[in-house]
């Protein structure tokens, strides 16, 4: 654990002390080294329990894939930000990198925390660098609005969680995740229902659940590319991870109390996918697609069956990789044309054919084409939802259909069609951009060969 954490913290000093000429190269190389070291976390010595354990931090099959994804994403974020940070003064570049590294540290601590309060503190701490990245380096004036929405939605959700955790500490005496599931909490009273809601609200807002999802399109669209990547890939999964940790405590109330949230989650799949079809802004479309996929994950976690948990973790990893890829693709368009409007960025297959291949693969993965891990996750979730209630198949099936239609719509609008004249002289794709996209796509395609790595502890 420390072999990853200490180098990440050391990256702080690297970012401030490296000479300007080598800054981005060194940061990328070091974070790639840390990412490759983090692959050691896949080697589980114990079958279902905690590994790499010490007093405060530990890894279990749920947090391992998420942690490795976090470590993997840092070099990718640095690669993606290189172009638009090129023109800024060196101090701002260093600040930006420092913010990304601090975000990374907090995320590693959050996912590997074994105690709920530590998880909570680092969960809240991730808000600060993200807020600074969105409001300072975002592109439009709306970014102030986006930052406010992001901050206050999450804070409003997580304040009840703090109180719930403190009550739990008072009653049980310990909040360690290793022994949380063994405490027999008898939840029957009216106040227990509030406690149940307080535990879950923060994570549902973070996921986001359909009714409280308004912050997500704003934050994703206004953030710079690294902000969008980390938001879509990891920060949403913080919500899912937290839910999966705490929901083991919340029996037997979950059987009845989950219903309203299940309805919101599954209905949200259809609603947000439909909104995707009417979006004019490419990043907005990808943001709403994130909400749609996370609705499936939220629904799966709430029904707490082994397959649904496996499906939730799988879909979280798959969606993290693919959503980040989509944002990188949208960014390549934006950097050339300075416009995210779908109507103006059409027909680029003729001028950038290899990029069209990556668009194609990413959109196919987004619509959960076999044999990607996206399909594995969605299939596990949809089957377990069907088991829970036969009627959900109508809604989830319809949702899959609309997902397919907007993914294909995205592909056809950006790649096929008449190429406008003003696109004929854009820069061809940089090697850096090809590298970035491949570093996203190769893990996605390789993971199907050993999906046990991302199934978690239930399967």
């Amino acid at each position, binding site marked *: 654990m420390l072999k990853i954490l200490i180098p990440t913290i050391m990256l702080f000093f690297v970012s401030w002390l490296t000479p300007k000429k080598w800054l981005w190269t060194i940061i990328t190389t070091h974070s790639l080294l840390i990412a490759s070291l983090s692959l050691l976390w896949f080697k589980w010595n114990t079958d279902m329990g905690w590994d790499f354990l010490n007093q405060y931090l530990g890894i279990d099959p749920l947090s391992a894939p998420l942690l490795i994804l976090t470590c993997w994403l840092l070099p990718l974020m640095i690669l993606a930000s290189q172009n638009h940070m090129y023109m800024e003064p060196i101090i701002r570049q260093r600040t930006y990198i420092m913010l990304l590294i601090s975000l990374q540290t907090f995320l590693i601590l959050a996912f590997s925390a074994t105690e709920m309060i530590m998880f909570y503190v680092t969960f809240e701490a991730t808000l600060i660098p993200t807020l600074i990245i969105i409001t300072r380096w975002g592109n*439009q*004036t709306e970014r102030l609005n986006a930052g406010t929405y992001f901050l206050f939605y999450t804070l409003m959700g997580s304040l009840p969680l703090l109180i719930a955790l403190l009550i739990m500490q008072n009653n049980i005496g310990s909040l360690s995740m290793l022994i949380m599931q063994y405490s027999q909490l008898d939840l029957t009273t009216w106040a227990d229902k509030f406690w149940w809601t307080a535990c879950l609200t923060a994570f549902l807002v973070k996921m986001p659940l359909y009714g409280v999802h308004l912050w997500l399109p704003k934050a994703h669209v206004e953030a710079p590319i690294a902000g969008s990547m980390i938001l879509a890939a990891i920060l949403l999964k913080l919500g899912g991870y937290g839910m999966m940790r705490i929901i083991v405590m919340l029996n037997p109330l979950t059987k009845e109390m989950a219903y309203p949230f299940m309805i919101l989650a599954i209905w949200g799949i259809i609603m947000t996918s439909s909104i995707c079809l009417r979006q004019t802004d490419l990043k907005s479309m990808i943001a709403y697609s994130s909400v749609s996929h996370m609705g499936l994950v939220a629904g799966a976690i709430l029904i707490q069956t082994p397959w649904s948990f496996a499906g939730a973790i799988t879909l979280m990893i798959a969606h993290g990789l693919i959503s980040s890829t989509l944002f990188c693709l949208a960014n390549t368009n934006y950097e050339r044309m300075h416009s995210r*409007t779908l*109507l*103006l960025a*059409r027909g680029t297959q003729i001028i950038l054919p290899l990029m069209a291949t990556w668009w194609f693969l990413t959109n196919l993965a987004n619509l959960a084409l076999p044999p990607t891990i996206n399909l594995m996750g969605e299939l596990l979730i949809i089957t377990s939802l069907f088991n829970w209630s036969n009627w959900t198949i109508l809604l989830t099936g319809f949702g899959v259909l609309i997902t397919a239609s907007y993914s294909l719509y995205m592909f056809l609008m950006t790649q096929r069609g*008449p190429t*406008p004249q003003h696109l004929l002289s854009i*820069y061809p794709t940089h090697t850096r951009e090809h590298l970035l996209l491949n570093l996203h796509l190769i893990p996605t395609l390789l993971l199907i060969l050993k999906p046990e790595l991302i199934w978690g502890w239930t399967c």
Partner: protein
Amino acid sequence: MFRLSRCGAGAVSFLTSLHRCPCLRSRGLGRVAFSSSARARRRDDFVKDLENEFVKFRQKVKEVLPGSDWSPLYQTPGLPPERADIVIVGGGVMGWSTAYWLKKKEAIREGVRVVVIERDPTYSRASTVLSVGGIRQQFSLSENIHLSMQSAHFLRNIQEHLNVVNEDPVDIQFNPSGYLFLAGKEESGILEENYRIQRDEGAAVILLTPQQLQRKFPWINTDGVVVASYGLENEGWFDPWLLLNAFRRKAISMGVYQCHGEVVGFEHSTRDMETDDGRSISLKRIHRAIVRMPNSAECQPVECALLVNAAGAWSGKVADMIGIGNGPEGTLEGTKLPVEPRKRYAYVFHCPNGPGLECPLCIDHKRTYFRREGLGGNYLGGRSPTEEEEPEHSDLEVDYTYFQEAVWPNLAHRVPAFESLKLKNAWAGYYDYNTFDQNAIIGTHPLVSNMFFATGFSGHGLQQSPAVGRAVAELILDGKFKTLDLGAFDFIRFYKGTKVLENNIV
């Protein structure tokens, strides 16, 4: 005058007014006239001042509370948005027509963000509103004929195009009185040739012999006229200000942003490429348009994906800002945008015995024209000057001697009733004159990837504006011209030297 914070100023001014309070002042000066009524009066003044200060303080606090738009971070009102998809430089009829058609053609609401940047909201020097406002199909180029014909169809159905719900209906006061071109012996061949072209393209034009002309328009003097062509349909004049406002109102209702400011420069990036024969050439791409606020030195860069140059008579200046024309003569880099302002006069005169209601826009072969203005016996007339008579265009002052010497004699010769007329009014306006071939410039520039032109109309822009706006919108959103192929008006003809000339120019 230094600015305190609003809350603090209330308190401070309250304190300073205490010093101004009469009772304190009189005490300081030593003048003491104590009578109980005077003291009571002074106390009343004191109370009244106190109340006034409280009222002011309450007002200032109300301004600060949420619901008012006061903010500690002062933001200049009227700034353009920091980014837009398409920036249209110039808010004349071309700019607003393009904005309207862009919004009409987007398949989905808010599909493109369009910003129109106009530096003069009063339009005091814009060509659009100072135009005579005529529309005709009598051109010799088929593209021009079709542009005007389709614009005329648009204007006839303007209600269904530009009507905004719950607002007054659109009325551009179209007078379909037609154009009458008179030709002498030298020009009759050209006129008949043009007539044939116009008939082939479907314009409703007829040729008239002098006898037919005399019968149809008894007030005309057919001396020197060999043949005349008269437009029967879709020709006439309208009010350009009403059309501009109709386009503007509709475009704004569809979501086009309007900004009052002046484009003073561009941020662009250059990319060096090599042509097939090994010559190196540099392509520019505009990233931001820098807009200066009116009466201010404050500039706001507007990030844009595309730019439409519809700046009319000043399009040449806007093109210079991006460096079109900076290069050795004879090369593509050195080809300037040949648009410059040319001043033209319009004179309004009153003649009680004039042609009356049955008066088309009559254009003499000596390039003198007149038309009816309103129903009270007023007429609008003018003359296209020759190259030697070209007035200098630094301001819009009217030259009345030109009327006396050049316009009136021709008018009087053509219409004997105009021998006794009274000049009422006159104004001058600019043509966005294309010095190369006096025809439109529509399309992209080969070296600046994302600049579109819609300029250079040299006097017949207003009448073609609906169709040109649609053509530019098609070029932007569909990638090519769909309804009308206006490839002949491309910028590249200036480099190649192929002129697209009209055979009769007014």
